[in-house]
Each structure stands twice: as structure tokens, then as C-alpha cells.
């Protein structure tokens, strides 16, 4: 004879404890931070400053959006920073060195990013390398390749004025187009993550990869696709940063991956997989920029900015863990 089970939690309870809370918390933190800096730091509350924050978030926002997909599957991508450099250099080679029309350069950047993503995905899905190791290796590979193909020289886009003109133009409220590019990318990512098969499988993989495999889904193939999508965003980031600098700088890039991952995590993406959102990640990216710029305007030296940013990341994740524990 067996015994009955206790009632499960109501849907309302589940919703309240859900991921939306982390997003709200991140948003609240951002708002508080903005208000705090506006009051305490002179010269912070100005339109120019806000635009600076938006502009500063553009690159990281794109990278973080891409990396969100990967983290939701329970993986990680350390190569997004140097990968971005690599794609910007590829674009430089195609548009400047080879003199091909700009649109081809843009496509080349995206393709290069997708290639990096596919290689990462294949190493992880087929060769069964742990994501940390695979993408760490690719970090060095792309860092090196960027320098190889550019012969360690920066590539300037002076001959293609249309490039910077387009991306850095400020037709709307004085906000550079790259910000709209980032938001547009985020919108596409949101659709992918929430409305498509790709998004469904991204969450499924992160939630229980084995169950997903046993359900007949081709886990290997979809993992590669997820990393490829991440790669496309790497390519997009390469375009954005190249337009900001009006050049492709092969020495740049390493370190950007940490900001990207931090943004995703602050926004509620769990490193253990199965949870995450584009909205949260974008909020996380804004939070980091706001923090940095706020501290800058306040005159805090760079060293301390680093310390404070680190503490914020630790604090955000800790809060998330405490919140999860209480809901369990």
C-alpha cells in the first residue's frame, strides 16, 4: 500500500519566486545606482553623461547577449573578447586591405564570428571538451590569429568614412546608432530565445541535457548552433567596436569576456544553466557601465573602480543564491 503526496506549490508561488524577480532586482539596482550617482556625484546627471553610458554599453551589451545563450545551456564562452577582435580584424582585411564594399566587410565579420562559434561548439559537443577549456583555447587562438592576419598592425577605416558615419551617427535624440544596433540585436535575441525552437532547446539543454538527449533531440547539433549564434553576436560586437575606434585593433579584446559574463550573471543568468534572459543581461550591462562611469565622474581612480565592480558582481550573484535558497 502506498501513501498520498502533499500538494505542489501553486503557480502563483512559482511565479513570484521566479526569474522575473532577479530581473526586477537588477532593474531596481540600476535605478538606485542612477539616482544615487545623480544625487551624490556632481556633473553626473547630464544628458551627455547618460549618452556616454549608453554608448559605453553598446559593445558589452552585444557580447553579453550572445554569451547569455551559451550560459543558459550550462556552458561558458571565454573567447568572446578576443573573438570580437578577430572579427573586427577580418572586417578590416576585407573592407580596407582587399578594398571590397563595406557590406561585404560586415558580412565577413559576422561570418568570422559564426566560424569561431561553430569551432567552439564542435569542440564542446563532438570532442567533448569542457566549455571552459575549449573556449579558453579559442581565446588564445583568436587572439593570435587576429595578430597573424593583420600582421600586428591596426587597420584604419579612413578610406571608408561611411562606416563610422553610419554607426556613430546620432540621428535619434543624440544617441549613436550603435546603441540601436545593440538594442536591435537584443530584440532579435529575445525573439530567438523566447519564441523559437532554438530558444526552447537552449533552455532544455541547460535544464537537463541528458533528458533532452533521451527525448530524441540532437543535442550535439543544437549545441553547435547555440555557440554559432553566440558567434554571430561576437561578429556584431566586432563591427560595433570597429566603428567606435574607426579601426580594427588587434591588441584589444582580452578582458571584454569578463564584462560580458558579469553582465549576464548580474541580470539573472545562472551559471549552472536553465535560467536566463536577454532583458536581464542588458540591464546587467547597463549596470556595469553606469557603475564605471559614475565612479569615473566621481573621480574614483581606476584601481578602485575595478574593486568596486568586482564586489558588485559578487554581491549580485550572492543575492541571487540567497534568493534561490529561500524559494527552495
Amino acid at each position, binding site marked *: *500500500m502506498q*501513501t498520498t503526496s502533499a500538494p*505542489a506549490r501553486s503557480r502563483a508561488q512559482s511565479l513570484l519566486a521566479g526569474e522575473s524577480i532577479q530581473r526586477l532586482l537588477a532593474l531596481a539596482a540600476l535605478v538606485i545606482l542612477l539616482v544615487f550617482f545623480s544625487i551624490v556625484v556632481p556633473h553626473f546627471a547630464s544628458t551627455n553623461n547618460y549618452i556616454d553610458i549608453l554608448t559605453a554599453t553598446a559593445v558589452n551589451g552585444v557580447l553579453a547577449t550572445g554569451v547569455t545563450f551559451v550560459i543558459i545551456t550550462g556552458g561558458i564562452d571565454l573567447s568572446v573578447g578576443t573573438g570580437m577582435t578577430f572579427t573586427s580584424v577580418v572586417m578590416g582585411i576585407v573592407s580596407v586591405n582587399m578594398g571590397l564594399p563595406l557590406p561585404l566587410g560586415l558580412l565577413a565579420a559576422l561570418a568570422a564570428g559564426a566560424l569561431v562559434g561553430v569551432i567552439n561548439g564542435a569542440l564542446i559537443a563532438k570532442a567533448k571538451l569542457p566549455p571552459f577549456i575549449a573556449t579558453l583555447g579559442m581565446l588564445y587562438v583568436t587572439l593570435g590569429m587576429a595578430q597573424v592576419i593583420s600582421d600586428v598592425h591596426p587597420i584604419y577605416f579612413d578610406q571608408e568614412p561611411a562606416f563610422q558615419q553610419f554607426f556613430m551617427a546620432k540621428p535619434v535624440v543624440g544617441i549613436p546608432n550603435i546603441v540601436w544596433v545593440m538594442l536591435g540585436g537584443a530584440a532579435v535575441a529575445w525573439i530567438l530565445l523566447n519564441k523559437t*525552437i532554438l530558444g*526552447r532547446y537552449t533552455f532544455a539543454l541547460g*535544464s*537537463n541535457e541528458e533528458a533532452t538527449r533521451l527525448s*530524441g533531440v540532437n543535442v550535439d547539433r543544437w549545441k553547435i548552433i547555440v555557440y554559432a549564434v553566440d558567434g554571430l553576436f561576437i561578429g556584431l560586437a566586432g563591427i560595433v567596436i570597429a566603428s567606435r575606434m574607426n579601426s580594427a585593433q588587434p591588441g584589444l579584446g582580452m578582458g571584454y569576456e569578463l564584462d560580458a559574463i558579469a553582465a549576464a550573471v548580474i541580470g539573472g543568468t545562472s551559471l549552472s544553466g536553465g535560467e536566463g534572459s536577454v532583458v536581464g543581461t542588458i540591464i546587467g550591462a547597463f549596470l556595469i557601465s553606469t557603475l564605471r562611469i559614475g565612479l569615473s565622474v566621481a573621480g574614483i581612480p581606476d584601481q578602485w573602480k575595478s574593486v568596486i565592480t568586482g564586489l558588485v558582481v559578487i554581491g549580485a550573484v550572492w543575492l541571487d543564491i540567497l534568493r534561490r535558497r529561500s524559494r527552495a
Partner: protein
Amino acid sequence: MAELLVEMTGISKSFPGVHALDDCRFELHPGEVHALVGENGAGKSTLMKILAGIYRRDAGTIRFKGQEVEIASPRAAQDLGISIIHQELNLMGHLTVAQNIFIGREPRGAAPFLLDEKTLNAKARELFETLHLKLDPRARVSSLAVAQQQMVEIAKALSFSSAVLIMDEPTAALTDTEIDELFRIIRHLRDQGKGIVHISHRLEELKQISNRITVMRDGRFIATVNTADAEIQQIISMMVGRTVFEATPELPEQRDPNVVLEVKGLNLGRQVRDISFSLHRGEILGIAGLVGAGRTEVVRAIFAADRPESGQVTINGKQVVIHGPSDAVHHGIAYLSEDRKRYGLALGMDVELNTVLASLRRFANGFGWVRTGATRKQALEQVQALAIKTPSIRQRVKNLSGGNQQKVVIAKWLTADTDILIFDEPTRGIDVGAKSEIYRLLNDLAKQGKSIIMISSELPEVLRMSHRILVMCEGRITGELSSAEATQEKIMTLATQREAVAAA
């Protein structure tokens, strides 16, 4: 004569270090419920996982509807028309019920890569209606109780309209009502001409539901019998290869009045409310109740795996403060958790390490160097004393059968010199033969003077094994029964005594 749905012949399969299947055969007719029984480690799950495309066979042939087939993947099996419901739940906790059921077959929207959530949820609702299931398609699976999660698995398997349905221990977490419902569904599917394989340890249930029973032992096919002609005792004999007495091992007399453990006013949230009881030396105290009554929570609070909010614990007359499990072990309390794979064992490590895991300091010298001579000796002694079936003490624990894994957990706590042993569902997932051995072990321990608290959801087990039985309901103890006066009905009454709880 109806064409065979499935015919497996000469199936062999080996894993590193383990010869799992040897020249096995299995047949399934359409319109039949075919039970598959055997001790843990007999190979039943392995054989069916081969049929379901999860493992590849090393040798032998599989015929499906008369045609020889290669089942290379779970997808291939699904496409052929073979579905499986696993023993361990294979669900994506972060996804909803409907999303889990239709993973890989999501209804598409305006474009082929876009999802159509509305249709998805509607299809799920339709499915539940046909199966008379009360599930919310939009509920997150991680928020459901285990029994409901199992229902989701069942609904998922049934949604494939397969010709063959394999069920591996489907009733483990279900109530009697739910089991009746499941059997109704199974009979309905059988009448539709489907072939159903039912793997279970619950022989009484199999007598109710199956047409034929196949017995496996040690990776080999033993026999297939008609259920109507078979006696449970006979089946058990075939399963273990020896006659097992149905009679309970004699409960040792418990005369020692000394109270080794006393709990007063223990409180922790809603699951542990004002719990007070005492445990005598050499006693086996059973704790019965419905799933969710708070039994595990009570013992976890005593063991301080979860810190209680209030309450006193007295051991051998002295009040103690237990801050955490290491304190508890220091005071001689052992906790053998419900889910031994997750909480009781380091699966990837060997028998030797697991045996000394709770008492490593004893086996290390001042600098922390582990004396492997001593650990080896201890492990070998325990393997002998508890009759643990393992090729060597170097064998990884994950390769042992459930019953032997449980024995390793017991060995660990005996090595740690604990006198108060708390067993949480000690025989869950363990076959008939090994269960008897565990019961015998428990009785021996009690005879030696150890004091045992045993949580169990199997009423016959609680009745057989306990000197006294505490019954819990919604966080409170609703009653205490001596072994003489206890009956299943009395226990169930106390276990459902919610009015008394609500009034309190």
C-alpha cells in the same frame, strides 16, 4: 497467432568491467502486458534500454513487427513506435509540463522556426483529458511534486501513440488511486493492441496487471510464465535462484529501557512542528506517514542537516547542541538519506573510500596522511560482515546494484562508530532478495545494541520491522503504536488525521 511485436534474441551487452547481459531473449505480443522482473543488477533495465535505443547491443538481433531492425538512438526507437518511461525522471525542470512533453515535436507557428505556445498548451490539455490527468500544462516541472512529475513522464510516453510502451518502475511514487488510474490506462492501451513492458519489483501489482512474466537473473533470461499460472513465491525463487522465506526475520526482543535519544519540542518551519519522542537502546522505531508529512525533515533537523528553529536533543541523558552533521556524527548519530545516490555515496569513488568517508580522521595520522593499509582492512572487513557483492573494494560504487550500494552506506556509518542510526527509506529501489538481507542487517544491528529510527512509506515494511511506530501528519506526530497493536488501517488513520492537526 498474432505476429510478434518485438522479438529480441541472443542479446548480449557489456560495460567496462561488467557483463550486463548474456544471450538474453524477450518477446512481446500486441495486446499484452508483459512484466519483466529480476533482482537489481539482473539486467532488465539494460535490456529495455537497448530496445529503446539508449544503449547499443553488442550481439543479437531485434525484430520489430517481423522485420529485423537496428535501433541506433532514442529518436530511432520513437520513430519505430517504441516509447519508454524511465525509472529516474528525465525531465527538464526549468521548462513547463507541456514543453517537456512535446520537446522535439513542438507545434510551429507562422514560420517553421517559431514556436506556437498556444497550440502546445492546447495539445497538452487534450492529452490530459484523454488520460484523465489533472495537470497544468503551464506549470514549471520543478515546482511539481515527484508523483506529478512521474505523471508528466507517463503522459509524455503515451503521447507518442507508440505500438510498444516500456515502463520502468512506474508506480514507485504513486498513490493507490493513481496506480489504479495508471492500470486503467494500461489496460485500455492493451485492449487497443499495444504491447506493454512493465518492469517492477512489486510482484503483487504485476499479478493484477500482467499477462505474462519474464524473469531475469544475473544478466540471463530465466523463464517466461503465464501470470495466471504463476505463484509469487515461485517467481521470487526464480529471481533469486534460491528459496526465500516469506516469513519476516524475527524482530529481536527489545527490553532495554535506557533512552539513548530524546527529542523535545523540535521545530522547523511548517514541516516540523513541536516534535517530541524518545528512542530506546536496541529499538527499531518506525516513522510512518504520507509523503510530505515531514518525516525526512524531522530527522534532518535532528541530524542538523537543516538547523532547527527550536528544540532540545538529549543523548544518553546529556543534553547536546548539534550545529551541523559533523557534530551529529561526533555524538554518534548516522543519517542514511532517502536518495542514497545523491546524498549517501560518492558514486565515482570506490567501495574502500566510501566505507571510510565518515571516519577518515581515524585512518589518518597527525599530518593528514591516510593509512591505506588500515582503510583497506576496514573495507574488506565490512564487505565480509555485510555480505556486500562487489568484485573488489576498488570497484566504483556507481557500478554496484542498489542493494549493495545501500550496504556500503551502512558500512560507512558502522565504521564511523555511530550508535543511533537513522534510515530514511532503507529499501527503496532494492529488490526482494536484497531487501531481506537489509532487514536481517537491521535486526542484527538492533541486537548488537544500536538504536534505529526507520522512516518508510511501505506499510508492510514498517509493520514488520518496528518495535514501535510513530505516525506523522503535516509536521506533527499524530500517534504512537506498539508493534503488537499496529495495523495498516490504524497507521493510515493517524497519517491522515488532518482535522486534529488543523485544530491544534
